[in-house]
């Protein structure tokens, strides 16, 4: 372990909740609720855009963090982050819970920078995404297995998305058991895994109903109303390229492919 992977000596486990809520005012989206708590701090960077800025190291082992997004019907929200999240070891497991509700006719783009699993970390990431029947979403998650040349700690990510109350996508990604990580059935030689869930603007046409495979990336039409872009890559730059390639295909209106 490198020295900077160690938690700051005076840093104690944190419990924090941050939230963003939108509402419709005169036919336009306003960010009507914005709550921050270190280390989760939001800055509004546009009319309907917020960025997470890190105001403390971590998450560290023992942290319990929660992020709630509420996108009201007819509004749109864009959530990003200014830097990647470096998950560090500490006392026990860190847990980040993200909930998001996207109302009827609303649209959410959630595309933060990657989560990097430092050596020795023990992290749980839980995402619960509830979409109204005609909600639009682009939800990207990227997990990087350690910094350069570093063996990752442990991570267990669970993603649950429902559309109109019905299950749309449920996935768990487990990282940190070398015997399984390197299995050619799971991650193989990759050092990063990423997914983007896209629910298109319009009902996808035949072109979007077919899976498409590229180098280390697949565009997978789900059984429900949505497309999953799933990618593996040797590094974070290649991962982003592969996901964006797939997102462009998945977001193309019907007939464009």
């Amino acid at each position, binding site marked *: 372990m490198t020295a900077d992977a160690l938690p700051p000596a005076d840093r104690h486990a944190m419990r924090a909740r941050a939230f963003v809520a939108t509402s419709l005012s005169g036919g336009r989206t306003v960010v009507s609720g914005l709550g921050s708590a270190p280390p989760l701090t939001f800055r509004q960077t546009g009319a309907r855009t917020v960025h997470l800025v890190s105001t403390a190291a971590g998450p560290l082992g023992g942290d319990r963090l929660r992020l709630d997004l509420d996108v009201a019907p007819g509004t749109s929200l864009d959530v990003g982050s200014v830097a990647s999240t470096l998950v560090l070891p500490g006392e026990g497991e860190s847990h980040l819970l993200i909930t998001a509700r996207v109302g009827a006719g609303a649209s959410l783009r959630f595309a933060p920078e990657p989560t990097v699993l430092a050596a020795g970390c023990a992290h749980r990431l839980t995402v619960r995404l509830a979409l109204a029947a005609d909600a639009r979403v682009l939800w990207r998650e990227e997990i990087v297995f350690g910094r350069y040349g570093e063996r990752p700690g442990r991570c267990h990510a669970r993603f649950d998305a429902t559309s109109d109350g019905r299950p749309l996508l449920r996935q768990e990604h487990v990282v940190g058991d070398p015997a399984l990580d390197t*299995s050619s*059935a799971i991650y193989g030689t990759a050092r990063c895994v990423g997914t983007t869930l896209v629910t298109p603007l319009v009902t996808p046409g035949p072109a979007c109903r077919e899976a498409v*495979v590229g180098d280390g990336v697949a565009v997978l*039409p789900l059984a429900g109303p949505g497309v999953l872009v799933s990618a593996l890559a040797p590094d974070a730059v290649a991962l982003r390229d592969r996901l964006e390639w797939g997102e462009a295909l998945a977001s193309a209106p019907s007939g464009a492919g």
Partner: protein
Amino acid sequence: MHPALLLLTDSRLPAGGHAHSGGAEQAVASGAVHDLPSLSAFLRGRLHTSGRVATAFAAACCAACGAARAAPDAPPGTPPWTGLDAEADARTASPAQRAASRIQGRLLLRVARRVWPAPALDSLALAVPDPHHPVALGAAAHAAGASPGDAALAAAYHAVTGPATAAARLLGLDPVEVHRLLADLAPDLKELASLVSGPETAWAELSAHSAPALDLLAERHARAAVRLFVS
């Protein structure tokens, strides 16, 4: 273990399982699986991801049949097959894998209805004619008199034996050595079957372990010009 489990997991059961390699053919074609150690890692990874999901669903479906039988006044169509099948769909992002699972599920259901006729199998065929394989396996296990734990074990076994024998043929590996790999996985099979949750667990919470490389392999395989196995 119920003796019917031997029949359910036997590769000679005429349910079409031999036509599927579970991604092994494409893994061999890509060079990722090329010898015994790489096959072993592939099988272990498959078992702990899609195999784990299959064990959870086979057990849940078997238990749902038992619960439905315990309530004789339950309306026709129960257990709630479409709900369970939709949960399996949500855990199978790859269309090629959904298709492979449903083909195998339909064939198994057809065989099971003749070998172990039961109202639960009839209601499944009515609600979902081509169910996901673990759903059909759970229902078939119940019809045959087996327990949810047995159904889980059968699903875990099915997750690795087909790919193992497919890879043995494609690579010309010593079949005895390949069976030794399978024997080495016995503790993992037992562990997975023991992880199966009780009937009080909501279906939404069942295992959803994903295998990104298997998804890629499945879609690549579906587009391959030459292939010996359907999946």
